[in-house]
């Protein structure tokens, strides 16, 4: 231990160092504690506001229908209509008797679906596709929940793919699709488009039968 070390140790422990007079130090500390507590409370309140705000914002900004139970009233009425069965009458080219197409529909899940003007039936895809639309003159058939309906159309001169798909588009934007079997009308004139014409639609009873595609 050097003399300087001793001098330093002695001085820092017992040396004549002027001590500032701070008579209000206790009050200053108490005030500082109060400020600290206020800041803590304010911080907690701010954090709570942020959390609550994020929660509210999350609810408000959440996309409608996202992660929620679908509201049946908000969805298209015909959105749940499906093609239960299909039937094709190839016709007789020899006698000129046109073929026919029958589609059996299962009713909607929630609301009545109108089978009427604007409903479009399409068979096939691409350039060979043919379409028939229900005319405005046809009185709509109301297909209720749990009901079934049959849609009839005449169909002739099919030169497209074998086992084509059939699709029904409803005016509310929904659609349903199925595949037809190999029984399709004969191709009588490849240069002429296939003709599909709506004839009628009606409610029908289905006892679990019908031809599945």
């Amino acid at each position, binding site marked *: 231990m050097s003399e*300087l070390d001793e001098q330093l140790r002695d001085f820092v422990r017992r040396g004549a*160092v*002027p001590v500032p007079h701070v008579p209000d130090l206790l009050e200053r500390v108490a005030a500082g*504690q109060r400020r*600290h507590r206020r800041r803590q409370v304010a911080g907690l309140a701010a954090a709570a506001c942020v959390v609550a705000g994020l929660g509210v914002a999350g609810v408000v900004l959440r996309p409608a229908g996202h992660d929620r139970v679908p509201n049946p009233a908000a969805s298209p009425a015909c959105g749940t209509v499906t093609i239960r069965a299909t039937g094709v009458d190839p016709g007789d080219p020899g006698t000129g008797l046109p073929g026919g197409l029958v589609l059996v529909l299962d009713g909607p899940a929630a609301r009545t679906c109108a089978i009427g003007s604007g409903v479009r039936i399409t068979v096939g895809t691409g350039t060979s596709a043919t379409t028939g639309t229900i005319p405005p003159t046809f009185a709509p058939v109301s297909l209720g929940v749990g009901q079934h309906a049959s849609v009839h159309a005449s169909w002739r001169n099919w030169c497209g793919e074998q086992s084509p798909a059939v699709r029904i588009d409803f005016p509310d934007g929904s659609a349903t699709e199925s595949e037809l079997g190999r029984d399709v009308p004969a191709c009588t004139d490849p240069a002429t488009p296939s003709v599909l014409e709506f004839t009628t639609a009606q409610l029908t009873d289905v006892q679990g039968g019908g031809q599945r595609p």
Partner: protein
Amino acid sequence: MDAEFAAFVAAKQNGLLRYGMLLTGGDPHTSADLAQETFLRLGRRWRHVRDVEHQDAYARRTMTRLWWTRSKRDRREQLRAETEERAGSEVGPAWESDVWAALQQLPPRQRAVLVLRYYEDCSEKEIAEVLGCRPGTVKSQASRGMASLRRLLGVDLLDGDLDDDLDGDNVGEVGV
């Protein structure tokens, strides 16, 4: 304020203010601020602090840590002041106490290391733990501080070697 803590503040404030004067090199305002901040820190952990065996040493170390942090934050100003102090030290003012005046001439970090070292008899490793820095930093600050003190006090360089002293163990405890 807790009555027990208020009594603690009242009893220890003079000792801590004096220690603050040592750390700050005689700045009464900064010393008062440091004492206040130290007591606030202790107050926040009073449940723990009141059970500490050596409350005085605990308070001094808290204050030293605060001063160390503040001096790091203001290092740019301190480096500028250090240059000015070196220039002024060549004049050789008449000091009432040579050691006190020499300590006042040191840069804050060097002074903090030396004060902690000689007040608490802390080893280099202990000082590093208190200040939250590397032992190498403590060693270099102490070495430079001692070299400056020797120069300011006109002490022969052969008088002692701080590096050897700093490797020693903590040997004592002094009240605030």
